C-alpha cells in the first residue's frame, strides 16, 4: 500500500514569492491534515479536511496561507508572498474513516521550505 506522498520535497524561495505543496493521501483515507514543523519543533496543525470539507482552518497563520481538497482526495497548500518566518517543513497526514478520533495519523515525508 502506498503511503502519503508529498511534493516537492524541497523548495527555496525569496521573500515575496509563492509556493504550492501537493499531497496525495493513502487511498480510502477520508481525513487529511496539514501540519507546519519549524526546525527543532514539533508539528503544529494548520488545517484539516474531512472529504472535501474544511473542518478546521483556524490555525492557518494568515490569509497568505490557503488549502484546498476539491475532490476529497489530493490536497494543495499554498503560501502567497512567503516570509522568512514561513521557513519550516510542511507535513501532510491522513487517517482512515473513524481513525480521526483515535489520533492515529499517517504522515508523508514532508516538504521542506526555506525562505531567504
Amino acid at each position, binding site marked *: 500500500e502506498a*503511503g*502519503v506522498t508529498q511534493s516537492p520535497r524541497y523548495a527555496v524561495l525569496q521573500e515575496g514569492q509563492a509556493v504550492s505543496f501537493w499531497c496525495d493521501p493513502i487511498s480510502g483515507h477520508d*481525513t487529511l*491534515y496539514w501540519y507546519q514543523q519549524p526546525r*527543532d*519543533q*514539533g*508539528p*503544529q*496543525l494548520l488545517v*484539516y479536511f*474531512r472529504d472535501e470539507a474544511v*473542518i*478546521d482552518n483556524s490555525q492557518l497563520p494568515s490569509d497568505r496561507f490557503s488549502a484546498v481538497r476539491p475532490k476529497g482526495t489530493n490536497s494543495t497548500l499554498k503560501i502567497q508572498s512567503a516570509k522568512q518566518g514561513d521557513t519550516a517543513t510542511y*507535513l501532510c*497526514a491522513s*487517517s482512515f474513516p473513524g*481513525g*480521526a*478520533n*483515535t*489520533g*492515529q*495519523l*499517517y*504522515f*508523508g*515525508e*514532508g516538504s521542506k521550505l526555506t525562505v531567504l
Partner: protein
Amino acid sequence: AQSVTQPDARVTVSEGASLQLRCKYSSSVTPYLFWYVQYPRQGLQLLLKYYSGDPVVQGVNGFEAEFSKSNSSFHLRKASVHWSDSAVYFCAVSMWGTGSKLSFGKGAKLTVSP
C-alpha cells in the same frame, strides 16, 4: 486546551543501555496519548498509543510507555536500545471527538552511541 512538555530535547545513550524519554501532559480530562517517531528522511510513525485501561502500553520494536494520571505523565521506555533507534521522538495528546487535533511536544532527539 491540552498540551505536552518534553523536557529533554537531546538524549544520548550507549547501545544496549536502557532508555526513558519523559513526557508531561496538561489536560482537563484524561486525554489520549501517543508517541510518534521520526527517523531521518522519513515521515512520522506512530510508536504506541494510550486510550484507557492498563497504564502500560506496548509499542513496536520493544518500546513501551506508562501512563500516570497522578503525575500527568506518559514516559517512553526501552530496556535495551539499538543504534537504529536513533531518531526524534514526539509525545502527542488529543481529545476524543476533536477530530484528531493532535498537539505535539517539541520532540526529543535520541542518539545511540556505539
